[in-house]
């Protein structure tokens, strides 16, 4: 009897915890509200199941606890009931899956007009690259990576000359349109994670991965690495500043291009 009551209290407590919990989604900063909606739908459907099945179980434990002289029922199966339960569960599963897959179909199609920025991860910091005037990121290769060429830029590729290289771990991005975040790793697996953007993706050395999002508010957001990458994993931080287009243009113009950095390095050698 006490057990059934405790189960009921746990059910009530769990639901209460959900609504009272101060820990929930951070304030959305990207257009991926669809993910939040899918999460809400999942909570509603799963919440109903959690409450219904547990309360029914508590009721059964209360009503059918052992009493002298009573005997259990003998019913090996009930095909009709089992069929109904299977059917209802299938409907529930479809109700969860459909919205989720609709959002996913948006996630896999990067908009044609998305602005491109590249985040480069290494143990244990972030750097960034923008494609510059020609809109195309220049070719890179690990064999070109040196202290003077940390991005591994191919010096013979003309598209790379105007690439804008940001060597500190702060990237700025503009409001007003979708952004494709191209991801590249120099060494091991990492993951580019900004909770407020909801989207995240692993960086895989040897492969170019990506995700896209559209910012919906300005702000300064911390980047976290979300794939264990060694002892310094938890220190691998950066930040993304979302700002109005005009401010972004000013900031971008202040960043050096590959051509400028190469010229600087050559000049340093001469002196």
């Amino acid at each position, binding site marked *: 009897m006490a057990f059934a009551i405790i189960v009921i209290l746990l059910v009530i407590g769990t639901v209460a*915890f959900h609504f009272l919990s101060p820990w929930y989604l951070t304030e959305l900063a990207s257009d991926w509200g669809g993910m939040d909606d899918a999460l809400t739908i*999942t909570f509603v459907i799963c919440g109903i199941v959690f409450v219904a099945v547990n309360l029914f179980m508590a009721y059964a434990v209360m009503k059918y606890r052992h009493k002298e002289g009573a005997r259990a029922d003998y019913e090996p199966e009930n095909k009709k009931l*089992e069929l109904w339960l299977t059917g209802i569960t299938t409907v529930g599963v479809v109700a969860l899956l459909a919205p*989720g*897959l609709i959002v996913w179909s948006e996630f896999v199609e990067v908009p044609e007009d998305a602005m491109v920025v590249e985040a480069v991860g290494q143990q244990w910091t972030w750097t960034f690259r923008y494609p510059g005037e020609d809109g195309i990121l220049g070719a890179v290769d690990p064999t070109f990576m040196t202290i003077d060429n940390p991005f591994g830029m191919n010096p013979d590729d003309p598209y790379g000359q105007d690439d804008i290289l940001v060597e500190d771990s702060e990237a700025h991005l503009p409001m007003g349109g979708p952004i494709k975040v191209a991801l590249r790793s120099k060494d091991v697996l990492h*993951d580019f994670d900004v909770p407020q953007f909801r989207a995240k993706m692993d960086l895989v*050395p040897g492969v170019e991965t990506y995700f896209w999002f559209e910012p919906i508010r300005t702000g300064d957001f*911390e980047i976290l690495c979300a794939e264990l*990458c060694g002892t310094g994993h938890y220190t691998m931080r950066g930040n993304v500043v979302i700002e109005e287009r005009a401010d972004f243009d000013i900031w971008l113009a202040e960043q050096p291009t590959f051509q400028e950095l190469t010229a600087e390095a050559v000049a340093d050698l001469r002196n």
Partner: protein
Amino acid sequence: MAHATMADDLTEFHHPKTFIGKYVWSQDHKVIAVQYTITAVLVGLVALVLSWLMRLQIGFPGMFEFIDADSYYQYTTMHGMIMVIYLLTALFLGGFGNYLIPLMIGARDMVFPFLNMLSYWVYLLAVIILMASFFVPGGPTGAGWTLYPPQAILAGTPGHEWGILLMLMSLVVFIVAFTMGGLNYVTTVLQGRTKGMTLMRMPLSVWGIFVATILGLLAFPALLVSGIMMTLDKLIHTSFFMPAIVSMGEQLDYGGGSPVLFQHLFWFFGHPEVYIVALPAFGIVSDILSTHARKNIFGYRMMVWAILVIGGLSFIVWAHHMYVSGMNPFFGFFFATTTLIIAVPTAIKVYNWVLTLWKGDIHLTVPMMFSIGFVFTFINGGLTGLFLGNVAVDVPLSDTYFVIAHFHMVMGVSPVLVVFAALYHWFPKITGKMFNQKLGYIHFWGTFLGTYAIYLPMHYLGILGMPRRYYDYMDSAFIPDSAYLMNQSITIAALIVGAFQFVFIVNVIISLIKGKKAEANPWRAASLEWQTPDNPPAHGNWGDKLPVVHRWAYDYSVPGAAEDFLPQNMPRGQDPGAQEENT
């Protein structure tokens, strides 16, 4: 059947005479089961202590200086690997599988008793190799239990020189042990059943362990090859998983390999692995619920089908662990669909457990409490799986504390509650003594309420976005102070739950020493293992004559019967009042 089975085998059954023959180099499945259980529990205690150390750092960052970042990641890795493989898998299959299968199907022992004995000693060797990694230069690997390359074998990750090699070696040896045991369990179930014990009369415990073993035999090879390939990458610089890398400013001589390939291989093993742990738990809890509710498991046939379907589907869901791995995003559609489909047979099992209680005659014994506790926590853990399986919902939750809360609830709490239910339930059979009931109830309440207090709030820290595998959050702006307070509470709850486990250990010890002698069948259960002539069962289990089975394992409360259970080996018609047409 045309061929001779152990049931028909009339050759002299050789009984060991010395202490060493009976209890050390024993080929008796019951002794081997106890050896597996003791070893698994001991190494599990090591992993439990490691979890306390982790929680001390998470709850009280920096307060314990000996827990630095390297150590923290080593504790995380060893805790995870020990718990999943060396405790849960070894305990459910090597422990419960070995003890229950021959007894429940009416066999004298496993069909390959010498190989069975070897499997335990090879498992012990695997454990020793793993524990040795604490003592080698650089210490154990800190790559996470998932051991992802390239990081696992490169500078920057603890144990990347020796620790990872010992880990991989230990896993290879474990897989050898598992294969030896697994061949036994599968072959014994198929070939060793006594007369009348058809497959559809076997208790669900046997079905769960049987299907789990098949899963293991098919899935472990993927782990084996990935372990061998990673060892070769480390030792002779092949590049199975290693692309061109600049590590700490230095160009390495790897190139052309794929880190994601390892993930596919690992998770092709890793997902069936969680069902290797879960299916025996499902089977065992069905039997305990039905015995203590004096009612047949509801929908036995569907329960068998559900175990088979879950087992089969478990091979086509693996990449739900890889939604943000950078694999082709279109895979997300396929794996989200298969993952949510697997929810259907799993939900049916949950309904059937609850419907077994409905209209039952429920005795709230200690095993029953743990079993109902399993259903409650599994509903929670199973439902959160739907969040993570649905690819678009998973992306923000991936690599956060939501994942940790989910898999602990569904692998750590629920199956462990079944382990306790099973240990209490079969304690009188294994030892011939009764355990102390009061201590059992105390152990239950502390464990059940305590684990819920640990893992329920943890989901919400994950929804907030707190990443997993973080040694320190370094005052991240998006994390409120209250979250740190919550982490402190979770740590304290974890330590309290840990303390409650001593109640169990004390109970086992004092019950062994001065527990009341148990009757042969104290729970009045119908399955065969309770019908042995000796209690605990002697070597050979059945005395001179093997049992003959006349009914399924769930003839509880048959209308008209004098007793509220009819044992499996009771001939039909022996109780003239029992309405046996429907049994």
